[in-house]
């Protein structure tokens, strides 16, 4: 964990108290921050219950970038192969289509019905999609999400 600010955490719990997800789930962001200093928590399922709403980061009296810390912990988890199946699907969509949420027939019809033309995105421009795919390969993303 690079975020050295975390060492200044005095366990006040303001982060946990303002967490919308923690109200309903086992996510306890204060504990995550604390545990991340002592051990590898890459396989902790709670890491993925955060909506990245930034409440904790806004309210931390020590100015710790709490949400950013969660993002780093998630990246570490992903590198170790802890990727939820639903997220893998979204990643594959990106690689295949350049969109995390690609168009489908229902929405194509909706577009036609309100007089919208074909989208101007990578979908319409094969060379652009090729560029996107090449970048995903160069950054190692394809390898990262391989099962």
């Amino acid at each position, binding site marked *: 964990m690079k975020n050295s600010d975390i060492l200044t955490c005095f366990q006040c719990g303001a982060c946990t108290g303002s967490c*919308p*997800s923690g*109200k*309903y789930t086992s996510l306890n962001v204060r504990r995550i921050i604390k545990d991340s200093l002592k051990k590898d928590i890459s396989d902790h399922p709670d890491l*993925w*219950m*955060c*909506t*990245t*709403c*930034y*409440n904790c*980061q*806004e309210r931390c009296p020590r100015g710790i*970038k709490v*949400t950013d810390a969660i*993002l780093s912990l*998630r*990246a570490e988890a*992903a590198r170790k192969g802890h*990727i*939820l*199946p*639903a*997220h893998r*699907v*979204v*990643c594959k969509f*990106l690689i295949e289509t*350049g*969109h*995390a*949420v*690609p*168009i*489908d027939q229902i*929405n194509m019809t*909706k*577009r036609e019905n*309100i*007089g*919208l033309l074909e*989208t*101007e*995105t*990578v979908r*319409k421009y094969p060379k*652009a*999609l090729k*560029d*996107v795919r*090449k*970048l*995903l390969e*160069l*950054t*190692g*993303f394809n390898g*990262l*999400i391989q099962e």
Partner: protein
Amino acid sequence: MKEYSLYLGCLIPNRYPGIEKATKLVLDRLGIKWSELKEASCCPAPGVFRSFDQNTWLTLAARNIILCEEKNTDLLTICNGCFSTLVDANNILKNNGDLRVQVNDHLKKIGKEFRGTIQVRHIIEFLDKEIGAKMIDEMIEKPLELKVALHYGCHLLKPTKERKLGGAEFPKFFDGLVEATGALSIPYEGKNSCCGAGGGVRSAMLETSLKMTEFKLERIKKAGADCIVEACPFCHLQYDSGQVELAKAGKIFDVPVVHYSQLLGLALGYSFEDVGLHLNATRNPGFESKIALLQKKDASIK
């Protein structure tokens, strides 16, 4: 006024094209010079992709930004998620030389380079700063006497140190734009709370994400709102499709969900269908006749 590139992202063209239509109508009516950004990809979405790999996230975001640099236009987004990714990536790459070198190293191989010459704008802060609520107020043809539960959405405002749009506890600028349409932005408990969709939670843990949505909807309903207004297709999806999902568990709310572009479109005299609100999953006939009545009432006064 300069020209802007309209960046649509994924959810708007591919799930809520009505928001796309409304935005294009409204931008034209306001006299804003714009053209759609061609060849753009997913921003990429901050929840999943920023979480997984910063380098990938930055590189793909940079490519979208470069498409605007090549046109010499600022980028205009109508989604909080796209805003979050693109404004953050733009700032990071403008200020962090090492990351810029890393990212440009990849981009060189597709013949592109991030130069840091444009700004990323979100339609709400853009309308507030460049047009202003007062001007919009004057242009309104059909004042919409509605009680609106406004949802800013997390990533429009936060992290506040990066966004620099003021505080996140009592923001005002979006309320001003809502009220310029003739509507009343009503207070409600939990107004600044998250819709529950972000961070990849909706895609991987639907039930958990819906608990947060239900929390919001209960309070919005209790406050007596006619509709929810937001400026993000992901919040829009979460509230609109989310209500269909909640209804399956017997939880009925029937609160219509309206993107600000659509609200403004209605106030400028466009019909419910013109602004694509008939494409929502949650329909409320009472709301629809109220809009029709408000639009007619005003026409007869004139």
